[in-house]
C-alpha cells in the first residue's frame, strides 16, 4: 500500500478541464462540498457533471462557470425550491443538459463498476426520455435476445473522476462510508480516477479491526484528502446534519443576484 494522503491543491490537479466528474451523496447529504470549493478555486472549466440527484454541489459549480454539461435524474433543493443557477444556465442555453432517470443512471454506474459495456433495465419505455437518450447515444431500445421483447439497453458510465466524501479513511485510501451509501461505491469503483475526501484519517488498524467497514478498498483510490466538515453545508451522517439555514442563505443570495459574492466569500473562508 502506498501513502496517498495529499493536500487538496495536489488532488485537484487530477481533474482536467473537460473531464466527466461524478460526486458523492444525494441532495443535502454527503456532497463533497469542500472539494467543490477547490475545483472552483483552481478554475476548472468545461466539466461534464454526472449524478443521480445532486444539489448545491452541482448548482454552485454551474454558477462558477466550471460546467459544460450536466446529466442528472433530478437537480433541485427539494422543499427550498429550484436550483436557480442550473435552471438559468439551461434556460439560457449556457450549458447542455441530459435528463436521466434514477433507475437507469444508477444501473449505468453499477455497470461501469462491474466492467460491463451496458446494462438492460426495465421500465422507461414509452416515456419521452427514450428519444432524447437514443439521440445522445446513451440508451438503445433492443430486443431481448431470449424472449424477443423490447427492453432498454443503457450504456455503462465510467466517469473520468469520482470525488467521494467519506467519514473515515486511512492514508492508503481504505475508506468507510457510514450510513446511507447511495451509489457512491459504484461511482468510486467505476471511475477512472478516484479522490477520497474524509472527515477523519484513521490508522489502518481501524480497518483490520472492522474489515466490513471498508467500503472502498485502497487499490481503487488515487488520492486521499483529509477534509473535516468536507460535506458542509450538506450532512455527513454520524458527524453533522445539513445546515438548512446555510442552504437558505445560498438560495436567497442566488435569488438576489449575489451568487458571485457568495462564491467569493466561500472560497476565501477556510472552514
Amino acid at each position, binding site marked *: 500500500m502506498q501513502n496517498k494522503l495529499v493536500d487538496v491543491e495536489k488532488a485537484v490537479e487530477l481533474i482536467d478541464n473537460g473531464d466527466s466528474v461524478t460526486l458523492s451523496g*444525494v*441532495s*443535502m*447529504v454527503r456532497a463533497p462540498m469542500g472539494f467543490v470549493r477547490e475545483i472552483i478555486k483552481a478554475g476548472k472549466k468545461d466539466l461534464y457533471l454526472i449524478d*443521480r*440527484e445532486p444539489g448545491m454541489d452541482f448548482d454552485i459549480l454551474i454558477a462558477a462557470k466550471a460546467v459544460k454539461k450536466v446529466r*442528472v*435524474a*433530478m*437537480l*433541485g433543493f*427539494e*422543499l*427550498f425550491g*429550484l*436550483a436557480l443557477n*442550473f*435552471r438559468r444556465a*439551461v*434556460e439560457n*442555453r449556457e450549458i447542455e*443538459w441530459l*435528463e436521466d*432517470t*434514477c*433507475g*437507469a443512471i*444508477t*444501473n449505468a454506474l*453499477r455497470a461501469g463498476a462491474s466492467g460491463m459495456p451496458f446494462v438492460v*433495465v*426495465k*421500465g*422507461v*419505455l*414509452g*416515456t*419521452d*426520455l427514450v428519444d*432524447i437518450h437514443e439521440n445522445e447515444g446513451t440508451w438503445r431500445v433492443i430486443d431481448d435476445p431470449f424472449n424477443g421483447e423490447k427492453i432498454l439497453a443503457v450504456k455503462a458510465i465510467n466517469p473520468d473522476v469520482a470525488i467521494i466524501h467519506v467519514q473515515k479513511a486511512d492514508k492508503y485510501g481504505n475508506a468507510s462510508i457510514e*450510513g*446511507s*451509501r*447511495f*451509489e457512491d461505491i*459504484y461511482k468510486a469503483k467505476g471511475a477512472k480516477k478516484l479522490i477520497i475526501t474524509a472527515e477523519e484519517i484513521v490508522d489502518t488498524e481501524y480497518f483490520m479491526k472492522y474489515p466490513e467497514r471498508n467500503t472502498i478498498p485502497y487499490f481503487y483510490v488515487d488520492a486521499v484528502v483529509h477534509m473535516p466538515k468536507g460535506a458542509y453545508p450538506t*450532512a455527513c*451522517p*454520524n458527524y453533522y*446534519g*445539513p445546515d*438548512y439555514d446555510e442552504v437558505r442563505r445560498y438560495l436567497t443570495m442566488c435569488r438576489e443576484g449575489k451568487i458571485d459574492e457568495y462564491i467569493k466569500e466561500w472560497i476565501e473562508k477556510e472552514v
Partner: protein
Amino acid sequence: MHTADVMIKAMAMEIDNNDIFLHGLASPLPALAMHLAKLTHAPHMVYINVADALDPEPNSYKLCLSSADPRHALNTKAVIELLETFDLAAKGKLTGMFLGGAQIDSKGNINLTCIGEYHSPKVKLPGGAAAAYLTPIVKKLIIWTTNHSKRVFVEKLDFVTGLGYEEGKEKDVTVITNMAVFKVTKEGFVLKSIHPDITVEEVIENMSFSPVVKDVKTTPKPTDEELRFIEKLDPDGVRFSEFKK
C-alpha cells in the same frame, strides 16, 4: 384541519399490509403517510426511503426538510441502497412509489422535466427522478400535487416523464390533490372523493380536462389518534411547506 393531513391519510389508505413502498426526495407527505399506514392498518408494510433506510423507527423519527436527511435513517434496521430497491422493482416486488407531477394528463401521465420544449425549455424543472424507471413497473402509483389547477391538470404534457394508466397492466394509479382523490382506470380519470369543504364544481373548474364524476364520496379525515401520530412525527410542521407557494 389542514389539507396536508387529509392528503396524508388518503395516501396512507392506498398502502396495504403486504406492500413494499418507497418514497423519494421532496416527499414530506408520502413519508408521513407511510408511517401512518404502518402505525395503523399496515404494520407489516416494508418502508424504504431515499435516505437508504429500512423501516425508520417512528419513535425517533422527526420529519426534516430534506427527505434524505440522515435523521430519517436514525435507528434504521439496515442500509438499503436505492439500487437494491430498484432491483426489487425490476423483480416486481416493489409495490408502490409516490411521485409529484408538475403537469398531469387524463391518463395520469406526468411531466417533471420541463415546461416548453426539451431543447429550449421555458422552465427547467428539477427533473423526473425515478419517474420514468418506476412508473411502468410498480403495482401502485400514487401521484400527488398540492396545486390542483389548470396549469397542473393539462390536456397535453410538454414532456412525458412518467407513465400513468397503461391498458392491460396490473397497475393501480391514484392521484391525490389538495382538493380531491382520483383513480385512473379504463373508465378514465375518475373522481373518487372530494376533501371536506371542497365542492365537485371547484374540482372540475380547476382542471383542463373533465374527470369522470359518479358516486363521489368525501375523503375521510384522519382520526384524532392518527392526527396525534402525524403531529408527533412532524412537530415542526414540515408537511405544510409544500403549501406555501
